[in-house]
């Protein structure tokens, strides 16, 4: 999508958001509250501290695993997926 909006998907569901938004902002703007399940408890998590410090909002996007949704801008064509068992980042 050109111009002011970016088209992306979350777990296969098509969405769009204003250009410049972070992945976290774009998901919240689309009514999505959580996009990670914790390792041991499988508890749902989304934005908590919102400035890159708490790592609660980790999300998978394209080939990138466990990126901080509160910091990373959403791009055209991004395939954003629930981060179910974040591998140690390497």
């Amino acid at each position: 999508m050109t111009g002011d909006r970016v088209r992306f998907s979350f777990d296969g569901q098509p969405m769009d958001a204003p250009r410049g938004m972070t992945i976290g902002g774009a998901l919240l703007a689309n009514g999505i509250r959580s996009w990670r399940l914790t390792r041991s408890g499988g508890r749902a998590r989304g934005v908590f501290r919102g400035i890159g410090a708490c790592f609660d909002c980790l999300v998978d996007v394209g080939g990138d695993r466990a990126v901080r949704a509160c910091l990373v801008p959403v791009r055209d064509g991004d395939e954003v997926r629930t981060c179910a068992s974040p591998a140690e980042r390497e």
Partner: protein
Amino acid sequence: MSTPARSESDIAVVGAGPAGLAAALAAAGFGCAVTLIDSGPAIGGQVYRQSLLGPGRGTGAPGPGLPPRLHRAARHWRIRHLAATSAWHAEPEPDGGFRLRLAGPDRPEPAPGGQAGGARPTVLRARAVVLATGAAELVLPFPGWDLPGVTTAGAAQALLKSQGVTAGRRVLVSGSGPLLLPVAAGLAEAGVRVAAVLEATAARVGARHAVRFAAYPGKLREAAGYAGTLARYHVPVRAGHAVVACDGAGQVERATIARLDRNWRPVPGSRRDEAVDAVHVSFGFSPALDLPRLLGCADAQHPTRPTAAVRCDADLATSVAGVFAAGEVTGVGGAQAAELEGYLAGASAARYLGQIHPAAYAARTRALRARLGPARRFAALLDHAYPLRPGWLDWPEPGTIACRCEETRWAQIGQAVAAGAADVRSVKGLTRCGMGYCQGRICGPIVQYAVAAAAGRSLGEVGDLHSRPVATPVALDAIAGEG
């Protein structure tokens, strides 16, 4: 793995909030080459957070914009700004200089030329360092505080200011400190139904301090403005209350509000539920000490809060020669004190490098010091007006998450202390709390306070989780690629 890109600078300034921007401008003004490192996409830091939606695409959120006098840092020819860059390690070098290791964002933007990341150095050598790393928001745990929809008040403000996004439609703002009113006012103006603002500190405690605030009419006007906004939107502000539990299926659906006694213990029979889809919590701030500790800077424990601050002399020199500090990292004092401290620390760093004659330095910093006095007295006043009370230890239940990353339960902290762990490091070893992604940034102060209370020791005696070999989590290839 790649060869590290090395870079040199007279002065490295870490943090581009008001303190870091002022320090960079002062040092550059005295002829120093400055590299300004900040993890955000644009200068301004938390308080002057700018819109991500592009120029002329304001988010409509209230709050101060970045003052033009600080914005000059973005264009100064002696200041190189490295945006979206984390300083994840720093160490003194044998020749008296310093080496900082830098990492880019989680997902680098593809540059038009093909090479991701462009000219971002991974190793920066500097002859002096100004630490303006700011402070982290303190959150106290309660049952359900890890449900989606519970965020810090700072997160709610950041989402609104930078993107015009809100996390809920009907919300509560709860905690303690001067951040609650502006966050609630901003949300109300953005169309969020704020069911209430809950300030844990009792009204009569606040009233005791009110008369002293009369000396700061500007600050009172600001607070009155937020209060007026909240009144206009019929948002009640309730002192001596707090959210003490949240509940819901996969996200917040209900919050339990309790009246608190003067020590913040919930008053029996006062609990009532409120239907909300978000709760924004904040209990003040604690200085970000990771880089100062890596550089060997001494710090001082706050007497009553689970936080410490970098120790500085009157010129904002730390205990390590060549390392200076400014802003919240020296003790939480707000944007005005931070900016004044930034100019002073920048000038002190320039003097350290021989760029200013001592007599000129004294003359140039006299007015700054005169203005710093009242700004710091105001900060001390706020610090006393919002004391952290121990009754919050009654809010969590045995099964409440204490460490959000490792999912350590509240009861495990008490069990570790009962088993003989008498400091935070021992509790970490027994329970894994503080070992996850965030490296104890969220649970560190909570565990410090809880261990001190359970072991009957002072906050300083039980230690904290600020000392880490890596200041911010980075990808392994950043470490492997570093020479």
